[in-house]
């Protein structure tokens, strides 16, 4: 069974590689490379897979999951400029792909061992662009 919890955070980012020309950055990232950055309302969907506990009927304690999301993701990232305030984005370009991957790593580290196993992280940068990270993407 899959259980999905949603969370939102708003943050600034800037997609740009130092040492590249403006033109090359523009070709690669488009307007996301504008030098002073810009922001999004990111929407995060975290899906766990597991079997419900026979006594509680729960795959995971949602309150506990909410607290992990708050501690690992929202507190550090919400209302921040990712490039300047949230490592590793001082050296890793905070594309939606890289942010989703970082969220996966933080959750894998932060989630308590239990019945629910991290199955998918979906990160919407806008309603028209989202990234999925699943077990197949990190199991190597």
């Amino acid at each position, binding site marked *: 069974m899959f259980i999905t919890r949603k969370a939102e955070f708003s943050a600034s980012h800037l*997609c740009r*590689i130092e040492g590249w020309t403006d033109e090359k950055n523009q*070709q*690669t*990232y*488009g307007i996301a490379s504008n030098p002073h950055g810009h922001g999004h309302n990111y929407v995060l969907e975290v899906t766990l897979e597991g079997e419900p506990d026979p006594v509680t009927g729960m795959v995971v304690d949602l309150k506990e999951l909410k607290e992990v999301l708050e501690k690992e993701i929202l507190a550090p990232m919400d209302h921040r400029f990712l490039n300047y305030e949230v490592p590793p984005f001082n050296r*890793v*370009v*905070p*594309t*939606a*792909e*890289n942010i*989703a*991957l970082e969220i996966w790593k933080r959750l894998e580290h932060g989630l308590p061992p239990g019945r629910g196993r991290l199955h998918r992280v979906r990160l919407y940068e806008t*309603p*028209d*662009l*989202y*990234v*999925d*990270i*699943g077990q*197949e*993407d*990190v199991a*190597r």
Partner: protein
Amino acid sequence: MTASVTRVYRFSASHRLHTAALSESENARIFGKCNNPYGHGHNYELSVTVHGPIDPQTGLVVPPAGLDSYVEDRVLRRFSNRNINKDVAPFATLVPTTENLTTVIADLLRAEWPFASDSSSVTLRRVHVQETPRNGFEFILERPHVPELNPAPASGLLKR
């Protein structure tokens, strides 16, 4: 590390569900108001999902502008503000149900897929067409894209 990236596009078009293989009354019975003689329109929403390695330098699976211009060229310009039955080739004879539309769009996208190379295998993984907020249709492409000289019909490679 790999990831799936989905971009959502929109186009508005009209269609009429009707097949010459059936009588007028059978068409009316099967397709209902979708068979009304002059057709009708929808605001379609197309989601295209690609899967592949995250480029270690750029952090991208595919440059968004590259995917956008490919989808624009292969799909959107053919369908946007068109009458699908009259303006889009296969639908002269193929009923433009959204099932068929999704298949044709998947084929159009696969046919000249430019994002796979020797060093990187960025594949088309999923095509989803939302006809209305209540009706959605989806193809999951199970197999990685393999360039073909003679593409087989979609039904041979695509699993619904």
